[in-house]
């Protein structure tokens, strides 16, 4: 029997680690559930067990995560790696599987820090083996020291340039960078530049990557549209439109990226309110300044709540910890506000360049909602944009009804890779805004759970626990 945690944290990226450290410092019993084998999340993936790619390749921003992971290890928070959370109930019961054994653990408060995922990039051929996300390329490099020579990187967003820069530092040749940032985005971003210039260092860092890539002789082709990958059973070539002409490059590996969006499956399944964020073109969970959702005792922090990057996630994790500590009565509101004020100030400073970055790296509508009817939208159930449009033409109004027509969103990824595309496709087809169209209803278990584990589920065995399945 273990003691029931005051605060359960889901995820051990910057937000989850920072939340755990802050909560444990205040004397709370904290349990951290992490699907990965070690702390760090995706941004600091394998931070404790660096592979062949060292800090010289991965950079100072990556190495900076080591301080936080050490503080986390020293914090006294109980850490459960390899733990898949498949449910959090509105009553704060955390359903989790470790080593094939499922348990339900009730917590005083739950901080969801499950992170982001890369925005779907529905283009012809994006399901071919050899097409992966740029984030996947980076994970292979961080965790395993693996890189693919002569790959094409395509899309938009700061991460795209970061990973190309890391490849070049590792001595891995890159065939080309195809930038899909629409020209209109530069104009849209311009009025937001003054706010961003207050954090000019961040912007210089990004420009530095671009310069290093060009200096290395890698072709960077800007204003690309109409990306398409083709090949016989695997990626062999990538085609694109530039300057009014179609071009083609041979490539066995195509790494695509157009930003990251919150992974909302868990907060959605709890029943928290979510709103459409027009600036980032995604759903985000509604929270107050302390990360509290509209479900009592459920908090959200980090890029899983609102994409702002690693440092914003760390600060958001600290704020959520203060909010949770206050909710469970460990600290009073005056202490929370007092300790939180400098963190909120730092967070506002950290987010200054965000409106500029959001406007600049907002992917083109044509890259979010495929024009071609034969493009696969739902990878799991192999549903095309044309099938979704045809269903809308029959009178289908929302994503949930769409499931009965064509199974879009009903595969093992549970809508993670198609939900945004489906919402925007239906919005376009029915002439309504995305928030009126809505989202798939995400249900627990939010990760696949073997029936045998569910059948063997033990009642809450924590001290004072009485919650059964």
């Amino acid at each position, binding site marked *: 029997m273990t003691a029931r945690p005051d605060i359960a944290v889901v995820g051990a990226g910057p937000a989850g680690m920072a939340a755990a450290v802050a909560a444990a410092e205040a004397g709370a019993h904290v349990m951290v559930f992490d*699907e990965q*084998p070690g702390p760090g999340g*995706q941004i600091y993936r394998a931070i404790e*067990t660096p592979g*062949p*790619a060292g800090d010289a*390749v991965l950079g100072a921003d990556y190495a900076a995560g080591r301080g936080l992971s050490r503080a986390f290890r020293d914090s006294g928070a109980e850490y459960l790696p390899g733990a898949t959370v498949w449910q959090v109930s509105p009553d704060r019961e955390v359903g989790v599987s470790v080593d094939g054994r499922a348990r339900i653990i009730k917590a005083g408060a739950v901080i969801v820090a499950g992170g982001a*995922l*890369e925005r779907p990039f529905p283009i012809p051929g994006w*399901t*071919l*083996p*050899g*097409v*992966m*996300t740029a*984030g*996947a390329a980076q*994970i*292979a*490099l961080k*965790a*395993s*020291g*693996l*890189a*693919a*020579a002569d790959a094409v990187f395509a899309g938009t967003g700061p991460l795209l340039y970061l990973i190309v820069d890391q490849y070049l530092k*590792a*001595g*891995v040749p890159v065939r080309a960078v195809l930038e899909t940032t629409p020209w209109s985005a530069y104009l849209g971003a311009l009025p937001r530049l003054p706010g961003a210039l207050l954090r000019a260092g961040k912007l210089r860092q990004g420009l530095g990557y671009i310069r290093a890539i060009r200096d290395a002789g890698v072709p960077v082709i800007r204003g690309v549209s109409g990306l398409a990958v083709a090949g016989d*059973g*695997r990626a062999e070539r990538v085609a694109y439109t530039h300057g009014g002409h179609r071009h083609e490059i041979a490539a*066995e*590996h195509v790494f695509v990226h157009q930003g990251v969006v919150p*992974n909302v499956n868990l907060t959605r399944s709890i029943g928290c309110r979510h709103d459409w964020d027009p600036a980032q073109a995604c759903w985000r969970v509604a929270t107050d300044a302390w990360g509290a959702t509209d479900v009592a005792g459920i908090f959200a922090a980090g890029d899983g709540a609102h994409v702002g990057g690693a440092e914003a996630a760390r600060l958001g994790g600290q704020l959520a910890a203060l909010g949770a500590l206050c909710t469970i009565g460990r600290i009073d509101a005056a202490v929370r506000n007092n300790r939180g004020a400098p963190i909120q100030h730092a967070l506002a400073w950290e987010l200054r360049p965000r409106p500029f970055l959001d406007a600049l790296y907002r992917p083109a509508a044509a890259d979010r909602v495929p024009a071609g009817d034969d493009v696969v939208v739902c*990878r*799991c*159930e*192999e549903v095309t944009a044309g099938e979704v449009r045809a269903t809308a033409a029959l009178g289908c109004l929302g994503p949930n009804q769409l499931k009965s027509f064509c199974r879009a969103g009903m*595969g*093992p*990824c549970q809508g*993670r*890779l198609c939900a945004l595309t489906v919402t925007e496709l239906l919005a376009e087809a029915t002439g309504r805004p995305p928030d009126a169209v809505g989202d798939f209803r995400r249900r627990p278990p939010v990760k*696949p759970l073997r029936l045998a584990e569910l059948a063997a589920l033990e009642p809450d065995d924590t001290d004072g626990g009485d919650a059964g399945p």
Partner: protein
Amino acid sequence: MFTEIATDPGAPTVTIVFEGREIATRAGATVAAALLAAGELHFRDTPVGAERRGPYCLMGVCFDCLVEIDGEPNRQACMATVRDGMRVERQRGAAGIGP
């Protein structure tokens, strides 16, 4: 194909078997990393169109790297760690229910 950017001859290795082929890999690697480093991109065939698929996200959200591990179907190769003697097969179509 994916290759290691630096080799460490002293690093402990384990051997797994993929579709009858022996693959030596770093201990502690994910199954997905082991297969990618061995030049494999085709991890499964889809249930609907029998299309070839391989890893897409490498972080556990896309479910396109599903394989059968030691007889258990629908395992995410990017979330499973290699073990010496592990037998890995492509996930062909939908998995059956029950043993």
